[in-house]
């Protein structure tokens, strides 16, 4: 990425949830940066904390520690009062396209709602803006009069995207936005996200459990495990030269649609209870040493080029096997 001032910065974010006597650190010391117009992919499995990051960015949760800055200004400050400016600049697209819409309201109404709330348009201008937004997501303007149950899942997700674009946001937070879709529809919606990035220069925090989806869309990516960032960097670097054993396990577990190019899954130990100290991945890691079990690894640069921004949080990145590509049979 060119040297621009960041759009959004997350610095050492921490969020702990408590349920009775239990405290779970959902997000531990997460830092990441999104530049204007950049798609940052956030990948992780269930319990990794990726959706909590989304909720923190959307202002739906407040961090226990750390800070979020939008265009250099602290989010806590931006959200005082109505927080309207931030809430129009940062919009969300969620997983279930039909559930995300109000079943009693027409598609057109759902798209118009943010424009009304933010007093951005009314009357004839509102109607023409809704038609324009439907066009932007390649939906026929006649769909404005339909109800969510009368359209397909793919059409509903396009309508949700139209609604998210209504206030011309600078950032879309997409939380599993293509995960519930059939593969042919998923491809169309992924193409739409790329088109939005190119045409409108909208930045995205694209959260998904599906590594190939993130690889396809993201300019840079972040891999989370048990609340912490284990690897991050330019998408090509992370996918082609993964250095953290967990990233390597994810790649080796991703099954391509090709019977002749199946990955050989890297060895991993059985999943055990999550440790409360040291590397959280250590119980599943065949390379783990005593140090891994006692000390929290810190993110440090692993790229061959200095300043490549490719970093992994692993004490064993010097092990030669971690520099080899993940094998395929």
């Amino acid at each position, binding site marked *: 990425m060119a040297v621009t001032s960041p759009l959004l910065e997350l610095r050492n974010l921490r969020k702990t949830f408590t349920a009775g006597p239990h405290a779970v650190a959902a997000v531990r010391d997460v830092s990441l940066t999104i530049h204007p117009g950049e798609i940052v992919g956030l990948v992780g499995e269930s319990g990794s904390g990726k959706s909590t990051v989304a909720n923190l960015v959307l202002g739906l949760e407040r961090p226990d520690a750390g800070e979020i800055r939008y265009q250099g200004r602290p989010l806590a400050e931006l959200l005082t009062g109505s927080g309207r400016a931030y809430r129009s600049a940062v919009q969300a697209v969620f997983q279930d396209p039909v559930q995300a819409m109000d079943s009693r309201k027409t598609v057109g109404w759902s798209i118009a709602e943010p424009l009304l709330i933010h007093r951005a348009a009314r009357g004839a201008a509102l109607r023409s803006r809704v038609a324009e937004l439907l066009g932007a997501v390649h939906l026929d303007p006649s769909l404005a009069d339909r109800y969510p149950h009368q359209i397909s899942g793919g059409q509903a997700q396009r309508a949700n995207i139209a609604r998210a674009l209504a206030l011309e946001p600078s950032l879309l937070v997409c939380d599993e936005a293509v995960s519930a879709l059939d593969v042919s529809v998923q*491809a169309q919606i992924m193409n739409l996200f790329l*088109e939005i990035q190119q045409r409108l220069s909208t930045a995205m925090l694209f959260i998904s459990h599906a590594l190939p989806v993130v690889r396809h*869309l993201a*300019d840079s990516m972040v891999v989370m495990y048990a609340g912490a960032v284990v690897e991050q960097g330019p998408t090509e670097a992370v996918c082609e030269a993964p250095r953290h054993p967990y990233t390597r396990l994810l790649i080796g577990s991703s099954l391509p*649609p090709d019977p002749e190019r199946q990955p050989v899954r890297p060895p991993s130990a059985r999943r055990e209870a999550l440790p409360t100290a040291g590397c959280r991945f250590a119980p599943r890691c065949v390379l783990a040493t005593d140090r891994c079990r006692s000390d929290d690894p810190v993110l440090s640069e692993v790229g061959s080029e200095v300043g490549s921004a490719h970093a992994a949080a692993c004490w064993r990145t010097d092990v030669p096997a971690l520099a080899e590509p993940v094998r395929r049979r």
Partner: protein
Amino acid sequence: MSPILSVRGLTVCYPNADQPAVDDVGFDLAPGATIAVVGESGSGKSTVALALSRLLNPAVSIRADALTFEGHDLLGLPREALRRLRARRIAMIFQSPFGSWNPSRTIGAQLVDGLRAAGLWPERRQRLLELLKRVGIDDPERRLGDYPHRFSGGMLQRAMIAGALVTEPSLLIADEPTSALDATVQAEILEILDELRKEQNLALMLISHDLGVVARVAQHTLVLYRGRVVESGPTAALYRHAGHPYTQGLLAAVPRLEGPRKTPLPAMPQGTATIGGCVFASRCPRAEELCRTSAPPARRLNGTDVACHFAEDVRREPIWR
């Protein structure tokens, strides 16, 4: 080798539907072999699985020229005989780990129910414990006393597999068995399932929307679209030389970890059902008048059976790649 499962002309109609959910589906499954039925939502893939085990509502019409399992006619079998067959010879596992277990009874009690129904309790008790260990449940004797909410989704699916295989069935029907699980857990469970399948010479029918899982697991694949088999064949041939536009479109639409990125994925247009012609015609750039008026029969072509009037052209010049 004679097949353990033989299906010919399977057609399933839900009440008040104008099109059959499953239309003239046929295949053979040999002992120990694996077959996948792959398709998107609405393709009828789950209906095929439910029809085979006759788990559909009696109002649903199931017709077939043949539906034979180990010499039994599944459609004509009396309820009680069918129940015995399902308890011992045909096992099923489903997608939802939480929906498949009764939350108010322990895992152990529910697994014992299965063995009792098969008349194998307590003789298979030791085997059940062994299998639970094999699928990755440590200290099974203690864990059997747990209720389902104490298990993760992955652990419930592991227990489900152990329970399904302990009666030593000859056929396992698995409908999206790992789709709700994390990728790392999915890969591990598929490996364990494959090992056990080989050991027990179990035939597996996998129902899936996931072309990667199918590529990993199945020797033979059927591609289902709007209830019809548009292409079928050995998985390697089908993936390498897809002859049906829909198969090509599905394969091309999947994002991958290799190759180009940040470029538009080849995406099939949406379409509506065509009555009387090829089910895919309204979405197919290659479609001609013939496709809209006459349903193409399946033809053998370079190792796969393709139901497309223009399969030769489509294979020579793929529509989507």
